Structure formats: structure tokens, C-alpha cells
């Protein structure tokens, strides 16, 4: 049947459908809503500032301009300077790199490992599932941030040890939810049909089950990302993560804490506010993108 031969009503319906198809970008904006769009703009600003820091930061983030130490906002230093006279705006931009990249790595590792464990458990069930679930339960019992601290205690303070440690703490949050969803999918007739086609368990897990649980994986990863930002900043604040003089938002809150006692609250406030804005924007975007109820067709 070709389109020209279709009855006129069908043609009208088709034309209507064509003109009403809003396109992927419009759909995305609609899904985000006003608040989501605002959050996206905030996050994009932070990501751009972090990514372009080497080129657009007004100063070297580690250069001490002792004459401006503890100065407030001025034309020379837009956000002021810290106790060593380092430009706060530049440090904020450089610090955002670690504050964004670190948690992203944490969630990436946790998601990959968590999904693999979940699919293994769901496909094999029986003893494999029991052992994996048991390990997840143990991991659940320990707060994620503690794994970061343990890693630091063993391997010394630096960004990678904290990232790896924290990611272990985030594995169960991904694995538990994905395992449940994968178990449900596993019992669907189409999985059985694929099995009867002669596909392997590995192939079915990867090509049949994973795409169907992907929305849940994404939702879980994004909602964990916000927590990871806070956790990582907390470890830095305690002085156990990134080491000075490297710029990091958590570290800036801590050094700003000392400056505050000397009458200059700018550093702690700007760095703290930046963390809050990043976490808020991630949470809002994640919430909007993963709630199917909000999607308007």
C-alpha cells in the first residue's frame, strides 16, 4: 500500500501527526519543565566553567597575591581572595573540576560493577544470587563514606583512593535495585523466547535484559550522583581527600572556615554555595528525567 492510495482521512491524520511531532529537543525541554531548565543552565555553567578553567580563569589558582589576602569582592578579584591571596573565582573554577569529575568516576565505577553483579545474580539465581545478595547486605550496613575513609587509611590521602573507596560504598545502591528489576525481566516470555532461540545466558543478560532495565540504572546512577558530590566534598573537608594546594570545593569550605574566624566569610560561603547548587541541579535534573509520570506526550 503506498501513501497516495490511502483514504483521505488517513492522509489528514498522517499530516497532523507529522506537524505535531515536536522533535527530541522540544520533548526534552517539556520533560524538564521550568525548574529543570533552570537546573540544567546552572549545571551547564558549572561544567563549562570547570572544563574551560585553564583558559578562562582570570588567575593561576595557586598564585598567592599576598597583598590581596582575605580581601572581599573587588574589580581585581571578582569574588575576593583567600587567606593566601589566591583568587577565589579561579579556585572555584578549578575546584569544580574535581568536584564534578570525582563523583562522576565514583558513580561510573559503582554502576558498572553494580550492574554486572545484579545481572549475574538475576540470571544465575540460586547460590550465586545468595552470595551476591549477602555481600550487598554487608556493604549496605557500612556507610559509603566510611569506605572512602578506610581506603585513605590504607593507601594514604589522595583523590583516586577516595574515589575507589567511595565507589565500593555505592555499589549496593545500584546493584540491589537493578537486581530486582532484572529478576522481573528475566521471567518475561521474551527472555524465554530468546533462550529458546539458542542465545547464551550472557548474551541474553546483555542484549535482552540490560536494555530493559536501563531506565532504572540511569535513575539510580543520577540520584546517587548528588550524594556522591556531598560525600566527596565531606572527605575533602576532613582533609583526607585532595591535598592542598590543589583547588577543591570541599577543601575551600574547610580553609574558608579558618578565614571566617579572621573576619572573611566569602570563601566558605561561595564554595559551599557552589556545592549546594551543583547537588541541587543534579538532583532536579535526575528527578525530572527519570520520572515517567511527568513526561507529556
Amino acid at each position, binding site marked *: 500500500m503506498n501513501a497516495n492510495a490511502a483514504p483521505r482521512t488517513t492522509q489528514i491524520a498522517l499530516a497532523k501527526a507529522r506537524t505535531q511531532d515536536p522533535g527530541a529537543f522540544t520533548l526534552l525541554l517539556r520533560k524538564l519543565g521550568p525548574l529543570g531548565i533552570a537546573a540544567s543552565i546552572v549545571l551547564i555553567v558549572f561544567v563549562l566553567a570547570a572544563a574551560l578553567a585553564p583558559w578562562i580563569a582570570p588567575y593561576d589558582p595557586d598564585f598567592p597575591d599576598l597583598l590581596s589576602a582575605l580581601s572581599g569582592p573587588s574589580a581585581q578579584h571578582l569574588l575576593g581572595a583567600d587567606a593566601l591571596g589566591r583568587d577565589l573565582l579561579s579556585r572555584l573554577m578549578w575546584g569544580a573540576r574535581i568536584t564534578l569529575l570525582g563523583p562522576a568516576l565514583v558513580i561510573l565505577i559503582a554502576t558498572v560493577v553494580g550492574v554486572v553483579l545484579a545481572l549475574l545474580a538475576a540470571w544465575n539465581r540460586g547460590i550465586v544470587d545468595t552470595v551476591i545478595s549477602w555481600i550487598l547486605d554487608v556493604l549496605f550496613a557500612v556507610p559509603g563514606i566510611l569506605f572512602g575513609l578506610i581506603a585513605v587509611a590504607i593507601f594514604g590521602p589522595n583523590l583516586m583512593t577516595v574515589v575507589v573507596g567511595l565507589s565500593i560504598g555505592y555499589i549496593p545502591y545500584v546493584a540491589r535495585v537493578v537486581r530486582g528489576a532484572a529478576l522481573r525481566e528475566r521471567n518475561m516470555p*521474551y527472555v524465554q*523466547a*530468546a*533462550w*529458546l*532461540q539458542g*542465545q*547464551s545466558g550472557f548474551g541474553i543478560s546483555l542484549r535482552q535484559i540490560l*536494555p*530493559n532495565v536501563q531506565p532504572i540504572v540511569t535513575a539510580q546512577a543520577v540520584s546517587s550522583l548528588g550524594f556522591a558530590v556531598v560525600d566527596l566534598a565531606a572527605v575533602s573537608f576532613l582533609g583526607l581527600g585532595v591535598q592542598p594546594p590543589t583547588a577543591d570545593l570541599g577543601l575551600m569550605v574547610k580553609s574558608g572556615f579558618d578565614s571566617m574566624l579572621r573576619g572573611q566569610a566569602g570563601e566558605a560561603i561561595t564554595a559551599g554555595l557552589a556545592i549546594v547548587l551543583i547537588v541541587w541541579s543534579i538532583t532536579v535534573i535526575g528527578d525530572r528525567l527519570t520520572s515517567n509520570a511527568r513526561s507529556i506526550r
Partner: protein
Amino acid sequence: MSQPLLEVDDLRASLVTKYRRLDLLNGVSFTLDRGEAIGLVGESGSGKSLTTRAIMRMLAKGFRTEGDIRFDGESVLGMNRERLRRFRGTDVGIIFQDPRAHVNPVHSVGDFLTEALVRERGVSREDAERRAVQLLDEVGVRHAERRLKQYPHELSGGLLQRVMIASVLLAEPQLILADEPTTALDVTAQSDVMAIIEEQRRARGLSLLFITHDLELANACCDRLAVMYAGEIVEQGAHVYDAPTHPYTKELMGARPSIDERLDRLPVLEYNLEIHEELKARAQA
């Protein structure tokens, strides 16, 4: 080479729990020759689907299967994992009642059709796609190339069932198990789909085990009928439709509505388990 393709001999399946034992198949026996079609009919719960699942060794873990199933002389119950995978994937094809539930909603029709060929049998992507298009064409799917890019939700039930048939034929099996392939479809799609199955079966010389509630349909496209009741085959053969001998089959055939004669009420089957047991006991004595 004169041995039948599929021999089911005294097949028994029971669910065994700590407290009780439930016998669901009580000695099902039949043979299926190459190129032969057998229609398995019987009321709901008589064990038709269970029989196909037992043949495919798809029964859940709590089932105990006894008896013998031989495919081309080889015992299915004795197959190891790898052989079983090949048996399910290439020797036998199964067509389900509800096509929509048996395709992965996130994969396109093309992926669904070519996946097994490409991944498991090392056929190149282009080759597999060409074969898929050709087969879709054969089973009466028009615009086959465009269909490959569509997703299951864009296809109607009848069209999707044709895609399922194409996917089964792609594996080039010798035996097709069709478990009520037309029950979920409307009447016109039903006759189309059955015609396609019939046509392809004859062209390829395949054997067919056809499960249905539709006695006319089974009679029209099968060489033999086997009537199941309470987990056993009470009567089988080419005569069943026209000249049934078993009391249950007689009643079953008598309960069909007729197009020539108007009935206010269809007869209700008098046959029940009690009579069934008594008949069996008498036959043994």
C-alpha cells in the same frame, strides 16, 4: 531412515513438593514422522502446552519428568547443556500464542530476527538481513526492508505473528511446535497465519505439532488428531474427527456448533474424571 522424527513414549510429568505429588501428564505417547502434522486438541488444563514444554525441556525446576522423548533417535532428556541449546535453537522452532509478549520491546524487528543468526551462528550481518527480508517476504510481510527498522509496538498482532514465524523459519528447524498460534488473533489474521504456516510447512517438509482448541482448524491442516484428557491422550489417529470411538472424543465432537443447523444450546459434556478413571480401570481388567 524410516524412524520417526519425534517419538514421545510414556511421558509423565509431575509436580512434587514436600507434602504432595501432582501428576499432570500421565503417560503421553505419540510419534511424529518427517513432514507430518499432528493436531493436539483437548480442553483447557488437559496438558497440551505442558507436553510441548516437556519436549523443549522448559518445565520449571519443581517438575519431575519421566518417560522418553526421542528426537531423530536421540534422547532429549539425556542431552547435555550444549546439545540442548542447539536442539532448542536449530532443531525445533516454537511459535507462541501471544507474539507480543515474546519479543523484546526495545529491539527492532531486524535485530530480533538476525540476532541469533549473527551471534550464535556466525552469519554476517548483511547475510542475515538479506535472509530475514526474503523470509518476511515469503510469509507475506510487505515492505520487509522497512519492517526491519520498526519496533514491535508499531506492528499489529497478525503482522507480529508472521514475524515470529519468520524468526522460527530462519533457524531452519525440522520440527515446529505451534502452541495456539492463532488464538490471540482476529479471525481474518487467523486464517492468514494458518495458511502461511501450512504453506511453509509443506514447502519445507517440516513436521508440525499443532496445539489448538479449534477442532475444524486442526482437522483441516493436520494429518492426524490426538485428543488429550487429564494428562493423557485418549484417542489419536486420522479417524478421530469423522469417526471417533472413545466416549470422550465422541462427546467432544458432538459438542461442536454447526453452521447448518441452529441450536439454542450446545450440548454439555457429561464425561468427567470419574467416568475416565472407571473406563481406564475397565480397560485394564
